[in-house]
């Protein structure tokens, strides 16, 4: 048991990129999906952005397998609820006493596409980037060491806590606790499972803080880096370009109605 990270290590192009480059690319794809005012924007960003990058990293299969589990239940809910119950919409498909409304279907399509793109970008980042590289490269650029410490330490603590939770569950079950069955039984099993786990963990905080202090954690001197993350010139340029492009796109989107009216003479 190591850490609760999703990172898939491959000797592939995507993995070799600097972590901040991947972060900026993911954010850029998210901006694209949100800014383009087209129903199919999300799908386009996903197919032309997320998928090729995932292929480049050899992670398309795990990415898709995680993604559809998130998006499918959502999409079904969305199409059914917004499609059938869109207030005052134009019926398009009859379903007995109910009917699917056009506006609802359009809305559902847009949102599902957006979700696909956004979640896909996020998964691209988490599957394709080692979290410690990402946090260290942020720390190299000024993010306080407490933030990177919190993220990485939590990721390493979670699996251990889950093992402890399992042991508590086994011990309680041996004492006769019911964790399956009626709602009441399951509800009653909540506290015996949760309380010992939380109490034990909070008590550990004391020693954990002492150990941190003994390692100079609260020292105010400037820190050095044991394993700096290598960067490349072209990646730095790419990051800046994507960043500027994102800002421009956002500005364009916000002011599009004005531009439309004054420069393009529309209504």
């Amino acid at each position, binding site marked *: 048991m190591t850490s*609760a*990270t*999703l990172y898939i290590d491959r000797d592939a192009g995507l993995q070799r990129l600097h972590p901040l480059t991947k972060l900026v690319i993911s954010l850029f794809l998210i901006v694209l999906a949100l800014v383009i005012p087209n129903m199919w924007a999300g799908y386009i960003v996903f197919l032309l952005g997320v998928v090729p990058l995932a292929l480049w990293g050899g992670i398309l299969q795990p990415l898709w397998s*995680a993604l559809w589990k*998130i998006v499918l*239940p*959502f*999409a079904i*809910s*969305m199409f059914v*609820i*917004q499609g*059938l*119950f*869109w*207030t005052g919409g134009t019926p398009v498909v009859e379903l007995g006493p109910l009917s699917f409304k056009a506006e609802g279907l359009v809305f*559902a399509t847009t*949102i599902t596409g957006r979700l696909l793109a*956004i*979640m896909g970008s*996020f*998964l691209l*980042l*988490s599957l394709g980037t080692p*979290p410690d590289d990402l946090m260290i490269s942020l720390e190299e650029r000024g993010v306080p060491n*407490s933030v990177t*410490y*919190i*993220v990485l*330490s*939590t*990721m390493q*603590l*979670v699996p251990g*806590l*889950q093992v402890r*939770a399992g042991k508590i569950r086994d011990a309680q079950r041996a004492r006769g606790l019911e*964790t399956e069955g009626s*709602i009441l039984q*399951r*509800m009653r*099993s*909540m*506290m015996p*499972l*949760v*309380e010992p786990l*939380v*109490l034990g*963990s*909070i*008590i550990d*905080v*004391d020693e*954990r*803080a002492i150990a*941190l*202090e003994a390692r100079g*954690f*609260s020292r105010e001197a400037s820190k050095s880096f044991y394993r700096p993350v290598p960067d490349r010139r072209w990646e730095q340029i790419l990051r800046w370009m994507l960043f500027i492009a994102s800002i421009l796109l956002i500005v364009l989107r916000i002011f599009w109605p004005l531009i439309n009216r004054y420069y393009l003479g529309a209504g």
Partner: protein
Amino acid sequence: MDQLRKDFSTVTIALIVVALAINIVVGTIIFQLKVPFVYLDSIGTILVGLLAGPWAGLVTGILSNLLWGLLGNPGYVPYAPVAGVIGLMAGIFGSMGWFKSWWKWLLAGLITGLVAALLSAPITAYVYGGVTGAGTDLIVGMFRATGSSIMEAALGQGLITDLIDKTFSFFVVWLIVKALPTTLLTRFSRSQNVLEMGDVDLENILDQ
């Protein structure tokens, strides 16, 4: 500010790590138990707000949702501001001394649940079009069918869930803190929120 520096001491940082892990692990336990209306995925956040102040609570809430994202559940990320506000409010109620009487603390949970629902609704409406893929979407459908806007529908769904979940979460935190050794509680920057400060004779104790 001196209080801020104390609030973000090493003990707080260590507490935040444990709190975030608790959020994830307890949230998973409850999810696997399939208990309705209860998530219990913000116990850590509430604890940090109570023991280390509102700002630490805010940071914990936001990091909690971002971390869910990094761990493969990006669905929670847009709700980071709500999680942050939960920690913030736990800290504010703690500073107002509401932990010291059980009914005030439960009331604090109720109010926090209300605020959480109010803040979640616009996020659910904008990011997810009012639907989250969970079973409670049926409630959304019900509201939509009776003519509500997406926002109102999202609010209806969120309200019931958040009121129950947050009040219960505050209750669980109360139980936890009451069970912790008092010497441990003195380590935290806002220990005055949960302890009656000593009536021990400090002057002469060393001569005993």
